[in-house]
């Protein structure tokens, strides 16, 4: 592992860059750095934003000397990025997905693009393990790594104006779940009855950085009963 590079991306944000690629090694390092700085509880740190191969630290430059803080962070990092440094074990989250054509209007085009039947698309999607590289863009949206090469499909040429919350999609080499109902250009292959994000829940986001995710196919009936159960409990 090369030494992380620390540069200031404003007078209140320190940018930590790791190696220039997003393989699982760099993901592990970003996560180790994130967990280590989080556990440090340095009062100067207001926020930590992990991504593929960077970690941003937001500070209050009036309350704490930025130069001294940069030194403390660099020294914490030098231990955290060592390959033998322990990190919390990955939690496995199983996400039930109904791959009904109504929820997955692009199942067919994803299959056609890759010469697979719909059943094969579903079995490839449910047989892999994905890791949550980071959450970003919108509340609870997880960037997942690990999509099988034979499912890679380009985005739609024209994005849909409304995608229902819980939709599971594919865009290029990425797969993910829309936590909120938004416009979007991902190819939709199914929908989960789970709520990915609820600001009044603790924790608000279903997924967190470093989780391992598995998708489990459920029937339309199971999807509906899951939804009904949710209605009864909320």
């Amino acid at each position, binding site marked *: 592992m090369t030494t992380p590079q620390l*540069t*200031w*991306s*404003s*007078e*209140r*944000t320190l*940018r930590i860059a790791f190696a220039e690629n*997003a393989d699982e090694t760099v993901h592990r390092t970003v996560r180790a750095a*994130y967990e280590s700085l989080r556990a440090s509880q340095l009062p100067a740190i*207001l*926020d*930590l*934003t*992990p*991504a*593929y*191969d*960077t*970690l*941003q630290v*937001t500070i209050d*430059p*009036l309350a704490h000397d*930025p130069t001294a803080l940069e030194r403390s962070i660099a020294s914490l990092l030098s231990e955290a990025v060592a390959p033998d440094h322990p990190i919390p074990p990955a939690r496995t989250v199983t996400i039930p997905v109904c791959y009904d054509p109504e929820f997955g209007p692009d199942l067919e085009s994803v299959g056609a693009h890759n010469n697979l039947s719909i059943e094969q698309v579903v079995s490839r999607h449910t047989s892999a393990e994905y890791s949550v590289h*980071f*959450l*970003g*863009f*919108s*509340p*609870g*949206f997880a*960037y997942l790594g690990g999509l099988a090469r034979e499912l890679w499909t380009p985005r739609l040429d024209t994005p849909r104006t409304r995608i229902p919350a819980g939709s599971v999609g594919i865009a290029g080499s990425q797969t993910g779940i829309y*936590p*909120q109902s938004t416009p979007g250009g991902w190819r939709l292959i199914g929908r989960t009855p789970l709520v990915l*994000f609820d*600001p*009044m829940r603790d*924790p*608000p*986001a279903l997924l*967190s*950085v470093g989780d391992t995710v598995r998708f489990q196919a459920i029937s339309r009936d199971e999807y509906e009963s899951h939804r009904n159960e949710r209605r009864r409990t909320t």
Partner: protein
Amino acid sequence: MTHLRIVEPGMLTTVQDLGRIGHSAIGVTTAGAADPLSLRIGNRLLGNDDHDAALEITLIGGHFIPDADTIVCLTGADTTGSSIGDGETRRDLPAWTPMPVRAGESIRIGHCTTGTRAYLCIAGGIRTPPALGSRSTHIPSGIGGHEGRALKPGDTLPIGEQASHHIYSKPSQATIERIRAIHARRSLRITHGAHTLRFARDQLDRFEQSVYTMTEQSDRMGIRFRGTAITPPGDGHLRSEATTIGAIQVPHAGQPIVLFVDRPTTGGYPIIACIIAADLPALAQCRPQDELRFQFITRHHAVALLKEQEQIFDDLPRPTPIPTASETSR
């Protein structure tokens, strides 16, 4: 509980405090007052906490009625014809000045004449339920404020109780002039951003030497400029990484976009520079068609300028309690 009724909200009025800090790792952005300086000044003059929530009013004011006696303070953009009361008791509501309002009286805010955002601060703050530690409204995700949305006619918001028996004062004219000068600045200071050194030297020079016009396609998420196109490094796409308030991104088309308070937590366009914290209040008060320049300074200078700006708070008068016979110290 005391309430504020929204008779007419204006064009875009939301509940904002100093933002939802510390949740970017789950994709939750800060939101918060676009001009935190004006919000904090209003709160200080009322004896509130800096973090108390107020109404952020965009360009066009509205009509609000509290159901109990309170004190309000209007800050931020200059407005025209703002007033308290109805009929014969109607009186001016000057900016930067704590003003008493009686239960049932109208608070009317006019149009912004200079600047874009006015803040109606109220004693005790607006007390909508906090979400993730903040009352700030983030409309794109429907989080915070009043039902996660812009206010509508007929909404009622819980507000804090007025601290009784205080004398409230306004800042000195010199302090008000100083705040106005901060808002009027159109040559914004920038520091290096996440990818500054990946841009070609001549593109950085070109950026610093050009004048950019703010466009109508600007909101709390991003402020878009039109001017000399800048060539971004590579193909204009990078791996997604953290964003910052004031970061200036240059997509493939070459026209800069400043990421603002409602921005997504991560983005994938090259960042040429970042506007310094001390100049963000000016950015918040810019209007479409305003012409801006960007000027690089060092990070240390940026911190020094922020420190200097904070001195405004040392000069602000605070409410002073009037002890009464029936009241013990509070």
